[in-house]
Every structure is written in structure tokens, then in C-alpha cells.
């Protein structure tokens, strides 16, 4: 077996050195009758070539985003990632290292975490950012718990523009912890009255912008009302590239900002692994979940970096910890920070501009298809259209024509009466030809 260096002679010599007759003697604590004697009913070992064949056959059954005109978003976005990123994250010293608990031999990881935290703070307009969460949805649930700790209240108000899966993740954790959640109904036109929900019993208000329908939302009035009642504003985004073009949540009074960072540096991966971004005002830093990397000096006075404020964390504080998170999204953080470093603010602004320009072009083109209405007043690279037919059937018909045309709102919110809505994303990957193919195919499907 190519991955196992020991030879049978080694094994015999080692057993003799240990002083046991067989390896099973080392399993003597396994209760009687529970030690397996035969290999389990699974295939035997295979060479690389055979494994590649098997995996390749499964992969070939899927339609890859790059192979078709592709407009699917709603929380995960297809972007171009520079070749440098995937090369660098596969360097052994990054790929095969552990959480940097021994900082003297992990300065590479620690320095990029410090750089990442600085980048996320700047992007979101916040004072402090952590070293990542699993993804945007779990980060949102953690943000709600953090707000409860800060305010010593246990009621969260969730906007109807929050991604429904994020809402469900928050609801699931809150229900288990017996915390209250008020989730407002789906709000297609960004017109909900969330302000009237805020009173002195509320811990936090959770608002996504761009929201799940693509609308850009005004956070400042919500922050103002929340603060007047001692509550926090948690601002959420699922498309981090938008921060290259829109006012960041930090500038609108957000207390905690969480988001999905997949768009920068990371592939679609059918939903994971992704990278949760998490930032806050620095006065709340000791209530933050997750790892934090900080600057310090070594015995010679040289600058170095360590994991810090770990008395918040599970390995020290156990049942009093701010979160149970341990493993986070390390390598996805690296992909994010390399791509972000390559972009810089100049590149990110340009990337965001192209995304927006493409989306505007597509919205204008789709508005010309008979029976189609673009619902958004504002949007970044994603918007919602109303169709004269159920969107789920339209998407299937488009797929048969080789176009992946978006996410039906009914897939995210079944039973919400939104069957005719389609959420459409358009990033820098789409060409004029892609858009023309989409518009033509949609015209045929609706005809």
C-alpha cells in the first residue's frame, strides 16, 4: 500500500521490541467479541490510476460552471481566481501544517492571518476581524450569540432579506439554546418595516446587503434605532466583491459584520469549504468567537505573531467559551488573502465595477424579454426577475438548453408564494455571448 512505509519485517521487529506477540495484543482493551477479525465489506485497495478513473466518472456527470453560460448565485458566486492562488495554497508548508499553536515554526500561517484580519477589517470598515469562521451562515449564527452575550438579551430580529438558509441556521441554533428569533417574511422589494420590531427587548437586528434578492439596503437608520434601544446591528453579506463598490457596513453603524468570503480566492465546491468573514467593533473583541492572531515580539525583540486572547476559546474556557469552534477555514483564508493581495483596492474596485456593469447589461437585456420584469431598484451583481411561469420549471428548461440561469426563489423559500421569481447573478466571468445565449434561451422557454 503506497501510503504505508512499514514493511512486514519492520512490523515484526517492532512487535518484538514492544514485547507483544501480535498487533491485536495492543487492542486488548477492546471488549470481548467487539474486535473485528475480517476486513469490512468494502472494496480492496486501488492504485492511483483506478481511483482517478472512478472519481473522474463521477465528476464527469456534473455540469461545471465554466462549461456553460452560468448565472447562479444566491450565496455562492463563480469568479475567476488567478492561477497564482491555487499554486501557492498547495505549497506543502501551508497545506500540511496545523493550527499555529507552536508560533516559532508557524510564522507563515500567523503572518497571513494577521494580514487577512487587517484586510477584512478594511473591507468591512470595522475595527477588528477574526481569523475566520466556517462560512457566512455559521458566522451569522455565531454573531447572534455574540450579540446576546454583549447585550445580555436573547431575542434576535432577522430581516426578510436575509438568505433563507442563513435564517434557518440561526433559527436552529437559537431554538436549541432557547433563544428567541423573530424572522420577518420574505421581503422581495426591500420595503419591510424592520424599525418597528426594535425595542428594549431586542438583542440584535440582522440585515443582509446586498440582500438575497440582490437589493442594496440602507443600514444607517436601522443602526440608529438599534443603538437607541441598546441593541446591535449585525450586517451580513454573501457577496464580498460588492464591498469594492458599495459603502461598507462599518460606515453605516454596524456593530458586527459577517459575510461569506468564498467569492475571493475560493472555488464553488458545491457549497464548501468556504470561508466565513467576521468583524466587529473593538470594544466587543473579548466576546468574539474564533481565533485571533496578534502581534508581539520574540525573545530578541523581533516582531512576530501569535494566536491571542485564547481565554475566550474552548480549549481554555471549556463550557464558558464564546464558541465551540476549533478548526476553522485556514486554507480558504489563505486563498482569500492571496487573491485579495493580488487585487489590492485598485483591482477589487475594478472587479466590482465589471461585475456591476455586467449585471446592469443583463438586467437591461432580460427586461426586454416578453413577460419578464426586473424587480430591483438597486443591485450589485445579482437581481430578481418575475417570470410569467414558475421559475423552477424555467430553470430546468434552460438547463436542457445548456444555460444555468439562476436560482428559483421557490428553491430557497418553498411555499412563500414566490414561485415566479428567479434570482440571477452575473459576475466578471460572463461574456456578451453568454448573456445573449441566456436571453435567447429564456425567450424560447417563455414563448
Amino acid at each position, binding site marked *: *500500500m503506497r*501510503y*504505508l512505509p*512499514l514493511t512486514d519485517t519492520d512490523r515484526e521487529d517492532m512487535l518484538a521490541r*514492544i514485547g507483544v506477540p501480535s498487533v491485536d495484543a495492543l*487492542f486488548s*482493551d*477492546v471488549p470481548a467479541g467487539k474486535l*473485528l477479525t475480517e*476486513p*469490512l*465489506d*468494502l472494496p*480492496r485497495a*486501488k492504485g492511483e490510476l483506478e*481511483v482517478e478513473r472512478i472519481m473522474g466518472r*463521477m*465528476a464527469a456527470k*456534473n455540469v461545471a*460552471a465554466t462549461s456553460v453560460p452560468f448565472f*447562479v448565485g444566491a450565496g455562492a458566486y463563480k469568479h475567476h481566481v*488567478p492561477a497564482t492562488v491555487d499554486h501557492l495554497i498547495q*505549497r506543502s508548508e*501551508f497545506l*500540511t*501544517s*496545523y*493550527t499555529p499553536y*507552536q508560533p516559532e515554526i*508557524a510564522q*507563515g500561517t500567523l503572518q497571513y492571518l*494577521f*494580514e487577512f484580519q*487587517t484586510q477584512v477589517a478594511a473591507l468591512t470598515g470595522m475595527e477588528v476581524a477574526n481569523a475566520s469562521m*466556517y462560512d457566512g451562515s455559521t458566522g451569522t449564527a455565531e454573531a447572534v*450569540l455574540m450579540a446576546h452575550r454583549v447585550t445580555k438579551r436573547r431575542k434576535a430580529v432577522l430581516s426578510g432579506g436575509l438568505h433563507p438558509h442563513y435564517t434557518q*441556521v440561526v433559527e*436552529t441554533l437559537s431554538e436549541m439554546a432557547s433563544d428567541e428569533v423573530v424572522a420577518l417574511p420574505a421581503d422581495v422589494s426591500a420595503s419591510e418595516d424592520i424599525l418597528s420590531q426594535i425595542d428594549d427587548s431586542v438583542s440584535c437586528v440582522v440585515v443582509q446587503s446586498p440582500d438575497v434578492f440582490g437589493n442594496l439596503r440602507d443600514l444607517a437608520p436601522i443602526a440608529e434605532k438599534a443603538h437607541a434601544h441598546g441593541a446591535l446591528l449585525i450586517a451580513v453579506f454573501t457577496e464580498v466583491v460588492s464591498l469594492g463598490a*458599495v459603502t461598507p457596513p462599518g460606515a453605516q453603524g454596524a456593530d458586527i459584520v459577517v459575510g461569506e468570503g468564498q467569492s475571493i480566492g475560493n472555488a464553488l*465546491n458545491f*457549497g464548501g469549504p468556504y*470561508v466565513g468573514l467576521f468583524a466587529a467593533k473593538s470594544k466587543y473583541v473579548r466576546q468574539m468567537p474564533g481565533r485571533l492572531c496578534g502581534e508581539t515580539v*520574540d*525573545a530578541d525583540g523581533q516582531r*512576530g505573531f501569535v494566536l491571542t486572547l485564547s481565554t475566550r476559546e*474552548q*480549549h481554555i474556557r*471549556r463550557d464558558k467559551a464564546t464558541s*465551540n469552534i*476549533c*478548526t*476553522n477555514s*485556514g486554507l480558504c483564508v489563505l486563498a482569500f488573502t492571496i487573491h485579495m*493581495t493580488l487585487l489590492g*483596492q485598485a*483591482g477589487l474596485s475594478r472587479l466590482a465595477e465589471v461585475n456591476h*456593469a455586467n449585471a446592469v447589461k443583463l438586467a437591461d437585456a432580460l427586461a426586454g424579454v416578453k413577460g419578464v420584469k426586473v424587480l430591483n431598484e*438597486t443591485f450589485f451583481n445579482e437581481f430578481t426577475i418575475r417570470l410569467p411561469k414558475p421559475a423552477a420549471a424555467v430553470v430546468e428548461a434552460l*438547463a436542457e438548453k445548456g444555460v*444555468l440561469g439562476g436560482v428559483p426563489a421557490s428553491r430557497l423559500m418553498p411555499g412563500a408564494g414566490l414561485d415566479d421569481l428567479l434570482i440571477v447573478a452575473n459576475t466578471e466571468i460572463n461574456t456578451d455571448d453568454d448573456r445573449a445565449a441566456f436571453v435567447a434561451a429564456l425567450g424560447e422557454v417563455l414563448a
Partner: protein
Amino acid sequence: MLNRQGRPTQAGAAAAETHETFTGNRALQQIEPLIFEIGHHETTGVDIDKPTPFKSRLGKHARQDGIGLPGLSEPEAMRHYVRLSQKNYGIDTGLFPLGSCTMKHNARLNEKMARLPGFSDVHPLQPVSTVPGALDVMLELARYLMTLTGMPAVALSPKAGAHGEACGMMAIKAAIAAKGEGATRKIVLVPESAHGTNPATAALIGFTVKSVPARADGTVAVEDVKALLGPDVAAIMLTNPNTCGIFEPEIVEIAAAMHEAGAYFYCDGANFNAIVGKARPGDLGVDAMHINLHKTFSTPHGGGGPGAGPVVLSERLAPFAPVPFIHAEDGKSRLVEHKADAPEGNDPFGRMTAFHGQMGMYVRALAYMLSHGSDGMKQASEDAVLNANYIRAGLSDLMSLPFPDHPSMHEALFDDDWLKGTGVSTLDFAKAMIDEGYHPMTVYFPLVVHGAMLIEPTESESKASLDLFIATLRDLAMAAKGNDKTRFTAAPHHAPIRRLDETRAARQPVLKWEKPQPVKEAAE
């Protein structure tokens, strides 16, 4: 003396000279500034054409100010990250005996498979009809995990071990609520030796933690568990093999006691690598167990993640598994994304994450399983256990074992009793290992053992590698006992950086780069 090229090497003279370098660099070890100190706001390493004129639809939300982040050109970025990588120790660098973390070889075949466009370039919400191969991977991974654990169901979506713990404990909470006992069963038993994630998880979802004492031999006694059982107990969270590296001998009795008391058995599967193909949690009475794909099934640790933490579930808990999941019936499979779509008899407790979990890790883990096969996985576990016991046998005359009465499983645990009076601490010893070219073992965990040193070599080490490791630790141990303190208390001497001031980092947190103020202003 001539070297192979025939040139004089003059090694003697070179060795005598040491001096500070002009740059502060030491040959391959380069001092690397932060990107904020080398980049420029106008620089970018990504060329993107400006779009043709269009009418903005951002409304009043358009960003007014600059972001304040520099960019690097591609060559600058490449050099920056390569230099950073050279300050890191990975499995590919050398033996990485971090107990409880299973730092085994990360096969590059698995990386290649995860990057096939059919896996990496598919969207979680594209039409289900366009991703049958993704569902195949999930079903096949599920089949392997269920077979290896002897459990009837698995929830794939949790993103890492602690997330899997939360998923398993939520299923338990949902099952208790379904029996109408939600108001009474609030206590979760957790041994003192447990990973910190266990009590943190129990508390996270509203349970009260009660500690189970550790027996003198490092195991949990069924009598101690029984003494704590009552109608208020929801579950026990027990790691097996446990964090002391011992297979819990009374695990079957503990499971039976829990079930008899109407409670559940959550098993922390962090140490599953010791028993794959040797014993099945399903045969031991486990109700739920997470599996760290990044430990047992070799998906790379990546400097702290990403991981994946699927949870296998017993018949009693299976109906409560969270969405999304794949429901297979009559040879057909269907993706269930909402509670209302769940098949008859299922009552999903909710949702753990936005999408389907860590697909990229599923692919890598499945490639590992296919490569090893049932025979190779059994052999891997046997070799992991053999390697740990070989290290133990090679060191136990010099270093003290807290629990000598049980064989070790895949990790050997020492305490610091043998360092008493030497002036050398476990931490000093660990730092001296760095100078010798090794990543230290896990130290000061489990908490029940004073100055713990937990050594997990994994099956990836050759006998020659283990022999050198043992010889090195023996040399260090003798130096410590011989009062050669300089090798320890100031170690590491040869790492890219010396020991770091962690107290200062915590007292005056500097968590991001700030533009330095000009000296004159700062003085004012």
C-alpha cells in the same frame, strides 16, 4: 578537504565565523515585511479591462471612500507567500506527532481529484439534474462511513469536528424533546479528560455540563457514570479511544447504562484513526459520533482548516438528522433541502450550514478510502497503533507514563513526573524538539495529566523515521536529566523566530496592521 566538485570546502574556517548580516536574513530564511509595508494602493496583480460605459444601479450606496488596501504585482505576491511558507512546519517537512490531531500524510492524488471541474466548479444551487455525480460522491462517502462505523445513518453537512459535535448533540436534544422530556433532561456528562470542544458544545446548545471524574488508570468507570445518572441526564460525551490514548474498556457497559437511564451516548470520534476496520462504534452502543475527515481520512489540515465533521447516527437519532440530506429509496435518490420535503417518519431538527457541507473534503476523503480499501484502512490503523506503542517502548525507561497499565492506541501519553527537579518544563522540552527539526507533540493536554505530552506519530512514519525520533527524544531526555538546561529554557535557538511574548500579545492586543504615525507626531 575537497568536495565532490574538487573545490576546497574550508568547512573549519567557515564554522568559526558568525556575524550579523546586513539584511537580517539568514540565507534561505528571509525576513518578510507585511503586505501593507511593501504594497501600494495603486498596484494590482490582476489585469481587468475597464467596462464600457453603463448606468449605475447602485443608487446612493456607491462607495465614496477608498478601501485602504495595497496590492502586489504577481512576482511580488509570489515571493511574499513563498517566503512566508518557508517559516512554516508541515507534515511534508518532518514528523508531526501532534497528539489528538492525526497529522498523517496528505496524498496529492486527493488534491487533484478535488480540483476536477466536475467537483470544484459546481454550484450548490444549480439544478439538481446537473449534479448527479456530486450526489454520487455524497452517497458513496456515506456508505463508507456507515460501513466503517457500523451505524445506520450519517449527517454529512457539519463543517468540522466541533460543528459535528453540535449536530450530534442537537439530534439528541431533538430526540429528547420528541419524547416530551425536553424540560427535564438538561445535563450532559463530560469526562475531565475531554477535548474542550465537548463542554463548549454542550453549553452552546443549552445543556448543563457535569464532569465525570477520571479513574487513576486514565479510563472512565461505568460505576462513576452510573452514580451521576438520573432522569435529568440527557447524554454522555465520551471520546473513544480516549484522550489519554486508551480504548475505554467499559464502553459497552457505559452505553448500556446510558440507554437504561433513557439517555444517549455521544462519542467524540477524533481518535477514530486508531480503530478503523478494527472496531465499530455501532457495535459499542454509540448513538452519535462525528468523524473528522481532516484527521482519520487525511484531508489536509491547511494551517487550521478547513475540516469536515460528518456525524454517524443510530436508528434512534437518524430521523432527526438536519437538512439537507440525500434520501435514497428503491434505488432512486433525492436531495431533501427543506423540513417539509422530508420523507415520512423523518423530523429534521433544522439546518447546520447554508449548503451541503464540505464537498471538497468529501472528495478527498473518498479518494483516500478508495485508495486504501478495507484492507489498507485496517492496516493503517494497525500501523498507527504499532507506531505509537513502538515510541512508547523506546522512551518509557526515561520518560514517565501516567497510565502504564493499558496499551496505548494510536498515541502515547507521557507526563512530566520525570522532569521533576530538572528545571525543565514540558514547554521547554517541546521547544527543544523544534531545534532538533521536529514539530512538538501536543502538550498540556489532556488536562488530567500534569505536564502532558501526547505523541501521535500516525501510520505515515517509517521505522527509520521513528528510530531517529526516539533517539532524539532520548538524547533530549538525558540532557534534561543531566541538567543541560541551556538546550531547553531558551529554546528554540534555530527556528525562524525565538520564543514569543504571548502575555504581551494578550495584554495589549494588536490585531491588525495600523499605519505607523510619523515619529514627531507620536511624540507630541
